[in-house]
């Protein structure tokens, strides 16, 4: 392979890394917009820490677990060792002009690590929105660190790391299951252990708890869509012109169809133009297309996105009915649409087996759910995972951070002097 092609391939993966990075800003803004004002600092803090924790744990543990190497091909678990590095033989091959010595010349080992690390951090972020407004900060950070260090890479290894699913023709292009449904299943487990926000479900019925800023939420969704071009486009694992541009088209069409069908269905249900549903519909379409963006036709992409969009309002209402309190809709978007997208590959892509799509999808979700449930439960009975009722009423910003997200009335002399 020529130096030129290697360089452009690698460049695209790095640009895609930047795009996936900015998804963390997207998640932060989306989640901040969908929680109440009094919990805004808390959600921002969690998101800022998760990207840091995600990168660090993936560096030390995750990468080695997810890509254990050929020795573990077809297996369930393996470990290649701590840290990330440039293998000496790759460096030598590069020096000798053999640019396809690693990853078919798609990228360098460094690129590989950082691109994958961004994905890992993304997966952990999915949980933070679902458990917002009542989880203890410390418990959440421990959960997120262990989850991203261990659970995510293990199921990732099953497919992307050359494990047992990869051998059986399971197809999950950029992670409808491996990233989104894994995160969504963890979110569901966490919410089940944690319980609903105070006042959400009572004998009087379901109390809607609107988020505090629709501009932040909308901004988050646009940024996520933007980043998704790197998430899906980068998953081509080279700058292959036809391949990447095709993925851009399917991804865009699915997102657009998701918006329109979430709108239509939510309008049919509640006779209003519900922005929060359209925003979630876009994300649903994006999650849905993620598994098959490389193999389904544009028309199929439209269908996948449309169905994902239509699922969103139904799923959101359904989860509320069964008292799964998920302030940002993470379970609907990432878990439900992740499953749909993975199965859809079996429907729309001629050469993929629906059965193996289902087996892959559900075994991965089962693992993530059980792991997360057990971990959350262990934290619950040890250090405790939920803030006190009083703290929840006050808001986590004050009780956990002694800080407010917005200082509204600076002009009123509301602040005293530093006491320490």
């Amino acid at each position, binding site marked *: 392979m020529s130096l030129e092609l290697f360089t452009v391939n690698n460049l695209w993966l790095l640009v895609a890394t930047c795009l996936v990075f900015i998804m963390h800003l997207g998640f932060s803004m989306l989640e901040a917009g969908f929680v109440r004002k009094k919990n805004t600092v808390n959600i921002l803090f969690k998101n800022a820490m998760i990207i840091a924790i995600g990168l660090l744990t993936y560096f030390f543990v995750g990468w080695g677990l997810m890509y254990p190497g050929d020795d573990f091909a077809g297996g369930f678990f393996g470990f290649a060792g701590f840290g990330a590095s440039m293998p000496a033989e790759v460096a030598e091959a590069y020096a000798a002009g053999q640019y396809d010595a690693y990853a078919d010349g798609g990228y360098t080992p460094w690129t590989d690590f950082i691109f994958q690390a961004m994905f890992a951090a993304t997966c952990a972020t999915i949980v933070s929105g679902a458990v917002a407004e009542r989880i203890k900060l410390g418990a959440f950070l421990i959960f997120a660190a262990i989850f991203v260090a261990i659970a995510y890479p293990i199921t990732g290894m099953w497919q992307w790391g050359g494990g047992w699913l990869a051998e059986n023709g399971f197809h999950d292009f950029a992670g409808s299951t491996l990233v989104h449904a894994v995160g969504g299943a963890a979110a569901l487990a966490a919410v089940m252990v944690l319980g609903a926000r105070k006042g959400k479900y009572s004998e009087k019925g379901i109390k*809607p708890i*609107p988020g505090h800023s629709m501009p932040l939420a909308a901004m988050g969704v646009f940024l996520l869509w933007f980043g998704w071009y790197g998430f899906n486009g980068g998953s081509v694992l080279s700058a292959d012109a036809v391949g990447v541009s095709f993925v851009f088209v399917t991804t865009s069409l699915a997102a657009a169809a998701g918006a329109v069908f979430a709108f239509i269905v*939510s309008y049919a249900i*509640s006779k209003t133009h*519900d922005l929060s549903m359209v925003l979630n519909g876009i994300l649903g379409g994006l999650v849905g297309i993620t598994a098959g963006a490389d193999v389904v036709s544009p028309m199929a992409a439209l269908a996948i996105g449309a169905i994902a969009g239509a699922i969103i309002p139904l799923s*959101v*209402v359904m989860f509320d009915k069964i008292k799964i309190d998920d302030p940002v*809709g993470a379970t609907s978007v990432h878990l439900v649409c992740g499953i749909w997208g993975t199965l859809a590959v079996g429907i729309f892509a001629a050469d993929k087996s629906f059965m193996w799509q289902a087996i892959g999808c559900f075994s991965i979700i089962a693992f993530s759910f059980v792991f997360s449930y057990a971990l959350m439960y262990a934290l619950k009975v040890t250090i405790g995972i939920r803030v006190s009722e009083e703290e929840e009423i006050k808001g986590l910003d004050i009780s956990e951070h002694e800080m407010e997200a917005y200082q509204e009335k600076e002009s009123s002399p509301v602040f005293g002097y530093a006491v320490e």
Partner: protein
Amino acid sequence: MKKIEAIIRLSCFDKVRDALAQIGVKFFTLKDVKGFGLQKGESFVYRGSVYDSDYIARLQLDILTTDEKVDAIVDAIVSSGRTGEIGDGKITVFDVAQVVRIRTGEEAAAAI
């Protein structure tokens, strides 16, 4: 001297202010309040659930005035602040024991 508190609709403020100005009342204090009353609040939709806000945003005008002007002011507010729909609000009049203008220390009627 009296203090008049009038709870009115946001949408009537312009008319009320103009009506007050015409009878010579240009000074007052305005507060944003929430009214719980006969009128139902707006209904909202969020993520598939319809719900009611149980209050309605209203404005409260506080007007200090001398006794003889009270009736004129009340009349002006009633006629300019009325839509005839439930929720137009209330006017309450209080006796004032004392008024002082901070700038000058003037008291009573001179302070208004």
